[in-house]
């Protein structure tokens, strides 16, 4: 009796009791399906978070003021006032700094923006001409802020598409029109291309004004909220971080880097943090799915035990006719493996379809991990062997006369 025959025989036996077979398979389908769907959901989340972070700019380093300490009180992160435009200029002009391509001092504040009778609360970014290069911002019509605008404190604004929709309505072309920010009138000179994103990270809900205008005209301050640096390549990120770090330490007169009033972090740091969060999320989901897989396996074992009891006479007959222990064991193992195998295949299809539907519904990326499929498949086969082994052993240990007498 070869293996091909063994499995054909198993299929024949399983098709006799279709309802029971279907229910046993269903347990595995749900287990495998949810493992695959949840893993790919996790990975899709991870991929979309990564692509959003990357869309903020490549080879990006951000210098931010550290939280300020006033006595024992720790101030809010990013609320410091220690970074200035002069710091940015020093980085740009220093002969020791060789790894930085662009330096973009920025000031970010929220403010009320009005036009006519509509108004919106949005993010105001005081920027310089290099902002577009550093943050990969593109202009869909008009132009961005120039150096001349920054030098002359021009009251011009570049707006994101969300701001246009909020203030002027869908698909309006407001170039040349004016908006009022904190009571000051600004002329719109450009509109940025949509970048997507939402909520706190919405890249489209921003009004850009010249940095100096934001400092002097709008908010009356002389510091910047951050300095973004574009390194020359991904390889020199660490060099850039060190060069800028030492320069600023010296400028701010600190000897001990741990006492510094600023911090520099790279996009990679943010990416790593985000990845580790989404990674934890993914393993949590797969853990829950794995439990349902085990429950499915126990279901298979239950069905196989019932089958063994029900087929006691058949087992006795087969032994009387010359079946050896191994043959009976293999017969029952083949059946449970067929159950989990079929459940595994259907589960993989169901899992892929589910992830596809989820990706359509949430308009996220559709990711299927071959590793998840392989693992799910291996696990389902292992479950078939593990949970099928005990019933198979029980069957093969039956004595032929006991089994033949069984009513």
């Amino acid at each position, binding site marked *: *009796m070869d293996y091909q*025959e063994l499995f054909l025989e198993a299929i024949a036996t399983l098709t*006799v009791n279709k309802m029971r077979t279907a229910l046993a398979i269903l347990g595995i389908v749900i287990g495998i399906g949810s493992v695959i769907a949840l893993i790919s959901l996790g990975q899709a989340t991870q991929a979309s978070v990564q692509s959003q972070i990357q869309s903020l700019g490549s080879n990006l380093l951000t210098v931010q003021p550290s939280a300020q300490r006033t006595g024992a009180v720790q101030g809010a992160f990013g609320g410091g006032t220690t970074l200035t435009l002069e710091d940015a200029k020093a980085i740009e002009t220093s002969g020791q700094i060789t790894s930085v391509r662009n330096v973009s001092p920025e000031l970010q504040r929220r403010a009320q923006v009005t036009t006519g009778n509509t108004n919106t609360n949005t993010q105001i970014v005081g920027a310089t001409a290099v902002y577009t290069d550093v943050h990969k911002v593109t202009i869909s019509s008009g132009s961005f802020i120039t150096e001349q605008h920054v030098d002359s404190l021009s009251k011009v604004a570049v707006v994101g598409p969300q701001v246009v929709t909020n203030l002027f309505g869908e698909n309006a072309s407001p170039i040349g029109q004016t908006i009022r920010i904190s009571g000051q009138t600004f002329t719109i000179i450009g509109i940025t291309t949509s970048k997507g994103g939402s909520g706190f990270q919405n890249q489209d809900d921003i009004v850009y004004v010249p940095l100096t205008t934001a400092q002097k005209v709008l908010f009356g301050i002389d510091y910047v909220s951050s300095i973004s640096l574009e390194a020359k390549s991904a390889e020199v990120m660490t060099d850039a971080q060190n060069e800028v770090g030492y320069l600023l330490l010296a400028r701010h007169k600190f000897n001990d880097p741990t006492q510094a009033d600023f911090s520099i972090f790279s996009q990679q740091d943010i990416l790593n943090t985000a990845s580790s969060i989404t990674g934890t999320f993914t393993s949590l989901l797969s853990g829950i799915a794995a439990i349902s897989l085990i429950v499915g396996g126990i279901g298979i074992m239950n069905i196989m035990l019932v089958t063994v009891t029900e087929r006691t*006479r*058949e087992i006795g*007959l*087969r*032994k*009387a*006719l*010359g*079946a*050896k*222990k*191994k*043959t009976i064991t293999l017969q029952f193992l083949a059946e449970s493996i067929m159950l989990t195998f079929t459940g595994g295949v259907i589960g993989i299809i169901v899992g892929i379809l589910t992830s596809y539907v989820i990706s359509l519904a949430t308009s996220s990326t559709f990711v299927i991990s071959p590793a998840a499929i392989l693992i799910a498949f291996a696990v389902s086969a292992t479950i078939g062997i593990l949970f099928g082994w005990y019933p198979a052993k029980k069957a093969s240990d039956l*004595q*032929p*006369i006991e089994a*033949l007498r069984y009513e």
Partner: protein
Amino acid sequence: MAVRPIIEVSHLSKIYKTESIETVAVDDVSFTIHKGEFVAIMGPSGSGKSTLMHVLGALDRPTSGTYILDGENVENLTDDELADIRNRKIGFVFQAFNLLPRTTTMKNVAIPMMYAGIPKVEREATAKKFLEMVGLGDRLHHATNQISGGQQQRVAIARALVLNPALILADEPTGNIASAQAEEIMAIFTKLHKKGHTIVMITHEPDIAEHAKRIIHVHDGKII
């Protein structure tokens, strides 16, 4: 030189132990059966004839005594070795037919050959040949639950014959069959006997036992 007997039983006993009670089912029995004999083992229920049949069929081990089947000592064999003996040397015909339900007659007849490792094509040809021999050439692809009791027992006889066993062991072969069909079954056994098969039949019905050429009477575990 004397022909070696198919069955050689000497001082064979089978004792069942349940906690403190010992039940002697077969008590110091000795007999021999030669090739080509048609023997009926007769006795009322509880006489120990079923236990004797289990031992003769290598389904159970004797408590003491020796049993040599076709030159092989059946004592001290492992479960798998016993399975092998049953497969090669014994063709069983049971009272309750014991066919696989919802399975074709062909497949049922082919089962012993499957465990003997005979290739599928050959199995099907042999199964067909023996089903035709018992008059079921037109029922090859019927499921066993779609045919009559008499036909089922004929399938079982075909199954018993496929590996040309040294011994055909029939346990109340007509017990579950209407009397008209029972005659047909006995006619097949008579035919097989004429062809030279060795047949041992267990029964409690005297008119069935009459078909045999020799009758061994069992009572209270002893031959009388």
